[in-house]
C-alpha cells in the first residue's frame, strides 16, 4: 500500500542521511545566532506577557527553525526537478500523483524534527522549561505538514531556481520576522498585525508556544485552523502536481 509515497520517502531520507551533518549544522547555527542576538542581546532581562523573554523566544525559534527545515524541501524538489531531473522518475511511476505529495510531505515533517531536537537541547542550556506533551507533538505535526506542503506547492509553481529564491524572499523571510517568533504580534502596529494574520506561522507559533509553556490561548480553535490549512494545502498541491509536465 502507498508504495509510491513510501518509495519517495525512502529516496529523500537516503539522501538526507548522506548530508545529515550539513543539515544538523544548518539547523543548529541559525537558531543559536538568533538566540544570542535576541535572547541574550536585545531581550536580556525583558518580560513578555508575564514571562521572561527567553521562555517566549525559544518556542518561537523552535517553530521558526522547524518551518525553515520543512519548507527547505522546496529547494531540493526544485533542484531535482530542473537540474538533476530525478523528479521525472516520480512522474513516470505507476501511482497517483497525490502520493508524491504525501511522500514529500512526510519527508518535510521528518526534516522539520531535526531543529526541534536541537532547540530542545538549547532550552536545557538556557534553563527554560518546555513541556513536550502529546498536544505539542500534534501541533508540531500539523505545523510541519503545512510548511512541507507550502514547500511542495512553491516548487511546483516556480519555473526555475531563481524564482524559488524570489518566493523565499517575499514569503518566508517576512513570515519569520512578523509571525510572533521574536515579538508578540499583539504588540505590533495594526498594519503589521493585518499582515501577520495571513501567515500560517502566526497561528502555529501561537499554538506551539502555548503547548510548550502549558498555556491555553484558544488552542482548540488553533488546532482546527491548522487542520483546515493542511486539508486545503494538500488538495491544492495535489491539483497542481497533477498538471505538472516536464
Amino acid at each position, binding site marked *: 500500500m502507498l*508504495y509510491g509515497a*513510501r518509495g519517495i520517502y525512502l*529516496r529523500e531520507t537516503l539522501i538526507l542521511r*548522506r548530508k545529515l551533518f550539513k543539515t544538523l549544522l544548518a539547523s543548529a547555527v541559525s537558531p543559536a545566532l538568533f538566540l544570542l542576538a535576541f535572547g541574550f542581546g536585545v531581550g536580556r532581562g525583558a518580560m513578555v506577557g508575564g514571562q521572561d523573554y527567553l521562555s517566549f523566544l525559544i518556542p518561537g525559534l523552535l517553530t521558526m527553525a522547524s518551518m525553515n527545515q520543512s519548507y527547505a524541501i522546496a529547494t531540493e524538489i526544485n533542484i531535482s526537478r530542473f537540474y538533476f531531473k530525478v523528479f521525472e522518475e516520480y512522474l*513516470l511511476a*505507476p501511482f497517483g500523483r497525490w502520493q508524491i505529495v504525501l511522500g514529500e510531505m512526510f519527508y518535510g515533517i521528518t526534516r522539520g524534527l531535526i531543529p526541534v531536537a536541537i532547540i530542545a537541547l538549547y532550552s536545557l542550556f538556557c534553563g527554560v522549561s518546555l513541556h513536550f506533551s502529546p498536544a505539542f507533538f500534534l501541533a508540531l505535526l500539523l505545523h510541519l505538514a503545512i510548511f512541507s506542503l507550502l514547500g511542495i506547492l512553491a516548487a511546483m509553481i516556480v519555473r526555475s531556481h531563481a524564482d524559488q529564491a524570489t518566493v523565499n524572499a517575499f514569503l518566508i523571510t517576512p513570515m519569520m520576522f512578523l509571525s510572533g517568533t521574536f515579538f508578540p504580534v499583539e504588540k505590533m502596529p495594526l498594519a503589521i498585525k493585518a499582515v501577520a494574520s495571513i501567515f500560517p506561522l502566526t497561528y502555529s507559533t501561537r499554538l506551539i508556544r502555548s503547548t510548550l509553556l502549558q498555556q491555553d490561548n484558544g488552542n482548540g480553535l488553533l488546532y482546527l485552523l491548522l487542520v483546515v490549512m493542511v486539508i486545503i494545502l494538500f488538495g491544492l498541491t495535489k491539483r497542481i502536481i497533477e498538471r505538472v509536465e516536464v
Partner: protein
Amino acid sequence: MPASTTRDYPDEPGTSHLDNHHPEILVSGLKRSFGKVEAVRGIDLELHSGELFAFLGPNGAGKTTTINMLTGLLRPDSGRICYQGEPFVATAYEVRRRIGVVPQHNNLDRELTAAENLRVHGRLFGLGGPALQQRIESCLELAGLSEKRDTPAGKLSGGMKRKLVIVRALLHEPAILFLDEPTAGLDPHSRRKIWAFLRRINQEQHCTLFLTTHYIEEAEQLAERVCFIDQGRIIASGSPDELMKRTGSYVLDIYNDEDVDNEFFNDRATAMARLEQIDRTVRIRKTTLEDVFLQLTGKRIDP
C-alpha cells in the same frame, strides 16, 4: 518478459488486462504545441512487440516531445496513444508498468550508490523484499556494474552512468523501453558498447526498444525500422535497407568547385558506368540514411 518479481500495488485504480492482439503501441494524430511553436504536428505510429525502432531526426525535430507524450510526461494537445489497445491516460497505471524510460540526461541521484538508485526505482514501481534485491543484483550484473554496486552514482564514468540509467529503466521488467538519445555525449568507444548492450537487451529480454537519435550510424547499426521526423512530422519510415533502396543503393559524390552533387543508382554497375562519363572528381559509395534524409528534406540531420 518473465514475471518473477513480487509487486505491491493493490490500492491503485485504472488497472486492466492487456492483450497480445493489438500493436504494442498505436499512435494516431498526435499533436503538441508550446505557445506558437508546433513541436509535433500530427504523428501516426505503429510499433510491434520486440521491435527495435529508431526515431531519427535533427535536433528540434520533435523527437523528445513525442517520447515525452508517449511516456506520460507531457499531455498531447490532440491525438490518441494506445498500448496493446489500452488508451494511455493519466490513471493507466498498468500501462505505465509496461514502460521503461531512459531520458536524455543521466537523472541519477549522485549521492546514492548504484544499488540504492535501483532500489528507489524498484520501490517506486511497487517492488520489494528479496525479489527486489534479486532484480537489483541481476540488473547490476547485466550492466557489468556488480563491483560498483556501492559506489555513489556521481563517481561512475559517463558510460557506466548511462548503463545504470538503462538497467534502472529495466528493473521493473517493462515490455517497452524508451531511450531518448541513448548515446548522446558519449565517446565513440562507449557508444559502441551501449549499442551492443541495447542489442542484447532487445534479444535476451525480448524488450521492444523505441529510441530517438540524431546519430545516423546509431540508427543504421541498431534499428530494424527507422522513422524520419522533421519539423514535427514523420516524413518517411521503413527498414534502413528499404529506405536506402528507395533512394538508390549506390551514390556518386561529384565534387564541384564549391559543393558536392549526389547522383543515386539502384545498382553498382549503372553507377560505375555513369562514373566513367564524368570528368570531375567522383567517389562511389553505398547510400546512407543521411543521404535519404538529405534527399527528403534538402538538409543534413547532424550538420
